[in-house]
C-alpha cells in the first residue's frame, strides 16, 4: 500500500512524497483534530467486513477453503481483488501527490505497476493455476525437491511479506494519525488486530471480500472525484491542463518528464523491479488459486489490467485537479509568517500525500472527505490482510507441512497452524510497526519488490518454463537473487548513507533489480547445467508430466475441495 510512496522515497530520494512512509520529513506528520465523520464511516466498513468474516468462518472448513477460498471465486471478483491489491492508499494518495508536485512524472510509476500484468498473463497465470494448489511454492516444487524448493520459496515469501508489512504498518500509523486524528500506536494496534481477525477467522474468503469491497469503494470515490474535476473544466482535459500549467510553480515543465528519473540506469532498474516484482509478489500469486480454472485465471488478469489502468488514469486526473483547484486556495496550506504567502508544494497541509484527501473536501465537502479518509484506512487493512495470509500460508503449508512434518500431517493441523501463524505475524507486525515508528522504512517496499523480482519470480519462471531446471539450480539461483537484492539495497544510498550514516554509498543505484534479477536467472541456468546428480536427471525427465499438466490442466485440482 505505502509501496509507491516508499518506492519513491527509496528509489529517488524524493523528500516530500515519502513523508507518509516515514521518509526524511516524517517529523512533519502531526496528529490532526479527530475526524468523526471519517471514523463513523470506517466503523461501518469494519462492522460490515466483520460480518463477512463471520459468514466466511462458518463456511471455511478445509485447507482449500482457508488458503484458496475453496477455488470458488469468480473471474470478475478475483479481478477486483487483484486490482484492490494494486489500488493501495499509496497508489491513490502517493501517485496523485506525485502528479501534483511534478506533473507527468507520476505516470512513470503508474505504467511501471501496470505493465507487469500482461507478462503475468502471457507466461505465468494459466500455468500457475494448472499446476498449483495454494501457494506458488506448490508450482515451483512440482517436479523438484519439495524440501529445498519450499525452503527457498517460503524464505522469499517471508522476506517480501516482512519488509512490505513493516512499511505498511508504519505508513498506516502515520496516515491514520493524519486522517483520523488517532494516536500512532492506536492506529497500528487497530490495523494489526483487524487483520488478524480477517485472516485467522475468515481465511482467503474474507481476505478476498474485504479487498473487493474496498476496491469498489475506492473506484467509486476516485471516479466521483475525477468526474467532479473534469466537470469543473467542461470535460475538457485541455482546459484542465492549461489551468494547471498556469497555476503550477514549475509551469509548463509539469507536462514533460522532469528530474525524477535523471539516471538512465536507475530508471531502467526501477522499471525491471516494478514489472517483474509484480510477477513475484506472493500475496498476488495466491489469488490465482482462488478461481476455478485456467480460463478464469486468464480472464481475471484481463479485467484486473483494465481496472488498474482505469484507476491510474483517474489518479492522474485527480493530481492535475489538485493543481488546478487547490494550489490557488490558501485554506489548504500552512501560511508563512506574514499570513498570506505559502509554498504551493511544500506547505500543503499534511504534505503532498494529502492532495487527494484535500481535493475530496474541495469537490465533495466534509462528508465526502470523511468517506475518502475511511476508504484510505480500509485500503491499508485489505492489503495487510492479504500479506498476512501469504506469510501464514508460507509458514504452515510450505515450511511446516512439507519441510518439518515432511507431509505427515493432517489438513486440520495445517490449517490450525496457519491460523496461529496469522496471529503471530499480526503481533510481530504490531510490534515492528511500533519499533520502527521513527525509523526510515522508505526503502523497505522497494526492497520487497526487488526480492520478489530477484528470488520468487526467477525460481517460479524457470521451474515452469525450462526443462533443464534442477533443484540445485533453483535453490542456489533463488538464494543468490535474494542475497544480491538485499545486499545491494543495504549498500545503496537509502540504507548505507541515510540509515547507517556512512559518507558514500557502495552501490551507486537505488534499485537493484536490473542486476540482481538477471544474476538469479543466470545462476539457475548455470548451476542446473553443471548439475550431474541423478536427482537432477530425474527432475529433467519429470518435466514432460509437468508440461502436459501446465499446458492442459489435465489433473489440475478443481474448483472444489475434496
Amino acid at each position, binding site marked *: 500500500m505505502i509501496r509507491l510512496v516508499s518506492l519513491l522515497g527509496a528509489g529517488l530520494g524524493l523528500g516530500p512524497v515519502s513523508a507518509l512512509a516515514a521518509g526524511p520529513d516524517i517529523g512533519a506528520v502531526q496528529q490532526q483534530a479527530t475526524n468523526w465523520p471519517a471514523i463513523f464511516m470506517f466503523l461501518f466498513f469494519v462492522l460490515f467486513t466483520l460480518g463477512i468474516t463471520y459468514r466466511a468462518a462458518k463456511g471455511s472448513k478445509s*485447507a482449500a477453503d482457508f488458503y484458496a477460498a475453496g477455488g470458488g471465486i469468480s473471474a470478475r471478483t478475483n479481478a477486483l481483488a487483484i486490482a484492490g491489491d494494486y489500488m493501495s492508499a499509496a497508489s491513490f494518495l502517493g501517485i496523485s501527490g506525485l502528479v501534483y508536485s511534478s506533473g*507527468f512524472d507520476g*505516470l*512513470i510509476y*503508474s*505504467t511501471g505497476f*501496470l*505493465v507487469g*500484468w*500482461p*507478462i503475468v*498473463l*502471457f*507466461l505465468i497465470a*494459466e500455468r500457475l493455476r494448472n499446476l*498449483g*494448489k495454494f501457494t506458488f511454492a*506448490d508450482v515451483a516444487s*512440482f*517436479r*523438484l*525437491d*519439495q524440501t529445498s524448493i519450499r525452503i527457498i520459496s517460503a524464505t522469499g515469501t517471508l522476506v517480501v511479506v516482512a519488509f512490505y508489512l513493516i512499511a505498511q504498518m508504519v505508513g498506516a500509523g502515520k496516515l491514520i494519525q493524519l486522517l483520523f486524528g488517532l494516536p500512532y500506536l492506536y492506529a497500528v494496534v487497530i490495523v494489526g488486530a483487524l487483520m488478524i481477525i480477517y485472516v485467522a477467522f475468515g481465511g482467503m474468503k474474507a481476505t478476498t471480500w474485504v479487498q473487493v469491497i474496498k476496491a469498489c469503494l475506492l473506484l467509486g470515490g476516485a471516479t466521483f472525484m475525477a468526474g467532479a474535476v473534469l466537470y469543473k473544466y467542461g470535460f475538457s*482535459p*485541455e482546459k484542465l491542463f492549461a489551468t494547471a500549467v498556469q497555476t503550477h510553480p514549475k509551469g509548463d515543465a509539469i*507536462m*514533460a*518528464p522532469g528530474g525524477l*528519473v535523471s539516471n*538512465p540506469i536507475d*530508471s*531502467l532498474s526501477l*522499471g525491471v523491479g516494478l514489472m517483474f516484482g509484480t510477477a513475484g509478489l506472493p500475496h498476488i500469486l495466491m489469488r490465482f488459486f482462488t478461481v*476455478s*480454472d*485456467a*480460463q478464469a485465471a*486468464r*480472464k481475471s*488478469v*484481463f479485467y484486473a*489490467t483494465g481496472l488498474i*489502468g482505469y484507476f491510474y*488514469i483517474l489518479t492522474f486526473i485527480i493530481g492535475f485537479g489538485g493543481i488546478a483547484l487547490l494550489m490557488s486556495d490558501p485554506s489548504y496550506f500552512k501560511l508563512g509568517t506574514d499570513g498570506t504567502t505559502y509554498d504551493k508544494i511544500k506547505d500543503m497541509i499534511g504534505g503532498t500525500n494529502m492532495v487527494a484527501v484535500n481535493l475530496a473536501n474541495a469537490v465533495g465537502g466534509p462528508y465526502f472527505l470523511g468517506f475518502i479518509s475511511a476508504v484510505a484506512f480500509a485500503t491499508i487493512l485489505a492489503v495487510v490482510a492479504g500479506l498476512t495470509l501469504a506469510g501464514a500460508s508460507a509458514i504452515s503449508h510450505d515450511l511446516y507441512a512439507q519441510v518439518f512434518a515432511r507431509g505427515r*500431517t493432517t489438513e486440520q493441523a495445517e490449517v490450525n497452524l496457519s491460523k496461529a501463524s496469522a496471529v503471530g505475524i499480526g503481533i510481530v507486525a504490531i510490534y515492528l510497526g511500533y519499533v520502527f515508528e521513527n525509523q526510515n522504512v522508505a526503502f523497505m517496499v522497494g526492497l520487497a519488490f526487488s526480492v520478489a523480482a530477484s528470488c520468487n519470480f526467477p525460481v517460479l519462471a524457470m521451474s515452469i518454463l525450462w526443462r533443464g531446471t534442477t533443484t540445485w539450480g533453483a535453490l542456489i539461483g533463488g538464494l543468490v537473487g535474494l542475497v544480491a537484492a538485499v545486499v545491494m539495497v543495504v549498500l545503496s544510498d537509502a540504507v548505507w548513507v541515510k540509515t547507517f550514516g556512512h559518507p558514500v554509498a557502495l552501490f551507486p543505484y537505488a534499485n537493484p533489480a536490473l542486476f540482481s534479477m538477471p544474476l538469479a536467472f543466470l545462476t539457475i541456468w548455470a548451476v542446473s547445467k553443471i548439475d550431474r546428480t541423478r536427482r537432477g536427471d*530425474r*527432475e529433467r525427465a*519429470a518435466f*514432460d*508430466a509437468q*508440461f*502436459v*499438466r501446465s*499446458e*492442459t*490442466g*489435465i489433473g489440475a*485440482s*478443481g474448483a472444489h475441495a*475434496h
Partner: protein
Amino acid sequence: MSTIQTGGPSVTSDARTLHGGGALDMPEPDHRLDRIAEHPTFKTLVHERTRFGWILTGLMLVVYFGFIGLIAFDKALLATKVGGTASLSFYMGMFVIVFAFVLTGIYVARANTRYDRLSADLIRSLAK
C-alpha cells in the same frame, strides 16, 4: 475448461501436491501421458500458444522499455507539444496503459476461441 478437468483420472494425484514427496517418489509416467505429449493437437496447441505468448511479451517489453528509454535518454523529444498543452510524453504514457490492456484483451480473445477449442478437441480425442 471444466471439460478438461473431467477428462479422466488425474495424471498426478492431488495428494501429491498437497502433502507429497515430489520428484523422488513421482509415479512412473503412464502411457496416457505419453499419448497426450505425442498428440498432434497437443503439439499444435502448445506450439501456437507459446509462440503467441512470447510474441506479445516481446511487444510489451519493447513498448514499455521504449517509453522508459525515451524518458531516460531523450527528454527533449517527449517534451514536444502535441496539439495544445499536453506533450508527447503524456500521450505516450496513456498509450502504454491502453496498450497493456488491449494486449491482454487480444490474448484472452484468442485463448477463449482458438486455444480453448484445441483443448476441447484434445480432451475429446483422448476420451475415445
